[in-house]
């Protein structure tokens, strides 16, 4: 495997410093836009986000600390062709993952066929409660966030599948709204595919997966509450869909059904888009100390009295150990060749892989299989000798808990930073929705690492976001 650091691909300028066709018009506009104009727009955006309260809460800081995710006013632009391929690849991947989840909680044919090892079931995200349970439509991951990175003109890699409670879609929608407000002239000039119908697609899908025999299902969004880091998004989506935003205390179980307390008495709930993790959903089934969930919910769910989106136990398919098998799942369940490639990954449980990784720690990225948010990882090339030594010990103590990947030269996109406009690394998270169909709106969340040279785009670690433009095929001249 080639671990050589490749030159960084620049989304605007391409590999040979020639401005790429998809950016040509925008690059001209940008070159003619004075820096202080962009900075003024940037301040305006910040003021608007603050006023509207588009914030996230930061754990471990003073009570009620609310931060803005930095917003970059320079969009990331994808061509129609690029998007079609990415979208087809993401849909294919989610179809395979849903098939895998159904299989793993039923016949486990993929294990019998020797394609994935039975050890995956020792994964703590595997939920024995779900074994043999039929969920409406066989859909487990109703909302999936597929993290992609780019290293070259045609080289996109899937970095991670997020199948539990992926967040960020509200930023995709709010960033677009902000850009249209700040730069209306650009939208007149460019034909940017719209994303605003996402909440409607989501609502249609959620209604489509109601328990059978419910003609007019009641959908709610379950949030851990106003202090959760993604509370803004929960409120935003509930409002956009026109459904009630509920907390665990608003729900209760009676007669094998879920009800919510309303001012007119109790009302039956059929579909719960839950943004509460498995562990906190039901103190009777999972963590007994949790106050966020609903006692008895899992029992009703298992009996088909309510639909949860995403299903319980989807985590077994999105950890970093399972990730390595997703291309095989595409072949096994769909009989297709994967459209999107994985990042080449070493499994530290494997003897040969482990030997190689321990010899090349300084060149690799090592991740905990269940880590998220950029925590619990080693970025070899930028780590100190002590950090590398410490990770070596951690790997030797528990090799199953880690994977390693080559450090990729993530593409960069022009970004407004203090010094002016400069390239910063970006990734891409499109959101795939499954219900009657598997689909996505033509857009995604682009996250950007604001510090020079940094590859960490997570908002909890100071990353920012940008609007992602998917251009329609025919652009007006």
């Amino acid at each position, binding site marked *: 495997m080639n671990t050589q650091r490749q030159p960084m691909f620049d989304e605007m300028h391409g590999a040979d410093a020639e401005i790429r066709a998809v950016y040509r018009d925008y690059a001209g506009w940008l070159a003619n836009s004075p820096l202080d104009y962009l900075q003024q727009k940037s301040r305006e955006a910040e003021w608007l986000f603050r*006023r509207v*309260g588009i914030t996230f809460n930061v754990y471990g800081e003073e009570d009620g600390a609310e931060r803005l995710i930095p917003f970059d006013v320079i969009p990331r632009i994808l061509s129609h062709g690029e998007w079609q391929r990415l979208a087809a690849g993401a849909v294919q991947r989610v179809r395979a993952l849903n098939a895998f989840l159904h299989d793993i909680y039923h016949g486990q044919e993929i294990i019998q066929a020797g394609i994935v090892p039975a050890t995956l079931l020792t994964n703590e995200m595997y939920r024995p409660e779900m074994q043999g349970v039929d969920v409406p439509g066989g859909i487990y991951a109703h909302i999936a966030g597929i993290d992609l990175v780019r290293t070259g003109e045609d080289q996109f890699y899937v970095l991670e599948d997020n199948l539990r409670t992926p967040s960020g879609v509200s930023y995709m929608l709010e960033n677009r709204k902000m850009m249209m407000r700040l730069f209306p002239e650009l939208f007149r000039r460019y034909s940017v595919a719209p994303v605003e119908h996402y909440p409607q697609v989501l609502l249609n899908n959620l209604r489509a997966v109601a328990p059978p025999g419910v003609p007019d299902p009641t959908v709610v969004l379950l949030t851990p509450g106003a202090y959760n880091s993604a509370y803004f998004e929960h409120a935003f989506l509930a409002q956009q869909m026109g459904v009630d935003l509920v907390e665990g205390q608003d729900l209760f179980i009676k007669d094998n059904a879920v009800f919510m*307390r309303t001012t007119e008495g109790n009302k039956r709930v059929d579909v719960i888009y839950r943004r509460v993790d498995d562990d906190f959903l039901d103190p009777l089934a999972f963590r007994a100390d949790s106050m966020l969930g609903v006692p008895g919910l899992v029992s009703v769910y298992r009996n088909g009295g309510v639909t949860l989106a995403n299903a319980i136990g989807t985590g077994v398919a999105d950890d970093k150990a399972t990730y390595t098998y997703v291309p095989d799942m595409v072949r096994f369940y769909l009989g297709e060749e994967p459209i999107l490639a994985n990042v080449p990954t070493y499994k530290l449980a494997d003897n040969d892989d482990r030997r190689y990784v321990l010899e090349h720690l300084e060149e690799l990225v090592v991740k905990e299989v269940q880590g998220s948010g950029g925590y619990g990882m080693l970025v070899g090339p930028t780590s100190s000798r002590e950090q590398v030594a410490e990770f070596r010990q951690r790997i030797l103590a528990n090799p199953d808990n880690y994977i390693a990947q080559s450090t990729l030269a993530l593409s960069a996109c022009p970004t407004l930073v203090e010094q002016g406009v400069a390239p910063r690394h970006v990734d891409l998270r499109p959101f795939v929705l499954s219900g009657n169909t598997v689909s996505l709106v033509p857009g995604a969340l682009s996250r950007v690492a604001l510090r020079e040279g940094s590859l960490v785009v997570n908002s909890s670690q100071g990353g920012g976001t940008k609007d992602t433009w998917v251009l329609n095929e025919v652009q007006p001249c």
Partner: protein
Amino acid sequence: MLSRTADHLYWLARYIERAENTARMLDVTHRMSLVPNAAQSEAALWRPPVMIAGDLAAFEGEYGRYNAASVLRYMALDENNPSSIVSNLGRARENARAVRVSMSSEMWENVNALWLELRQRIRQGIGEGALSEFCDWVKSMSHLFRGVTYGTMLRDDGYRFLRLGTFIERADNTARLLDVKYHLLLPSPDDVGGAVDYYEWSALLRSVSAFEAYQKAFHDTIEPWKIAELLVLHSNMPRSLHACFDEITPILEKLCAARGWECLRQAGELHARLHYGRMEDIFQGGLHEFLQDFIAHNNALGAEIQRTFLNAPPH
């Protein structure tokens, strides 16, 4: 609608209304303290706002003496005082945040902007010189919130609970203000017929935006008993007890279609007293007694609303 959502909307409105009323009271006290040769000592002048809020013990424990600076700090800016303007607006924003889905986005932005500006103002500090401006600002933000609500919110149960909160709170505040100020300003029994300080009574009227209304209603010099009548019985005076119950009763009639007859009964009983009551009879039994009784019944109604519609049963 969700009981918890209704609860947050109801209390959001109450906290905003309470902040407004506190600002009104502080402002009028402050203005009265500026009149040369005010009959009362500084302490006597600054005690009533604290008394109206029902916080005497807490204030005396923390601040000791009643004077302009300490009462202003306590009533406007002290975050440890649950009835300060800052505390009320902070809680209003917390409630709004919990149910931003159930409001129009203009309403949420209004509350959020109010809170952001409040924090800015606190950082800059509010001295006695800026008090009137600060109180005006609180009042105007409250007006703005009511206006945005009236102009943009879907006329659903959420709207009804929000309005209910406003008027339950306002009735309570007007009754408390009148109760304390009336007896404070009334000349002693030996002195009946003596000169009543026109300025102080007009300041009381101004604190409930009723000065012009008084002139229009009575075309007369300012008399204490007429002021009481205006604030208790006049249905066309927007902050009077009667006007508040003109709003509360029909809202409860709508809400009680589904449940909670007891709320409607209590509200109807109070409303009838205000609608058919006579000022002579009220004075006969004692204005203070009447107001205390009203405050108690209004509180009981609030508790009944809470019990019937808003509380999630224990789980």
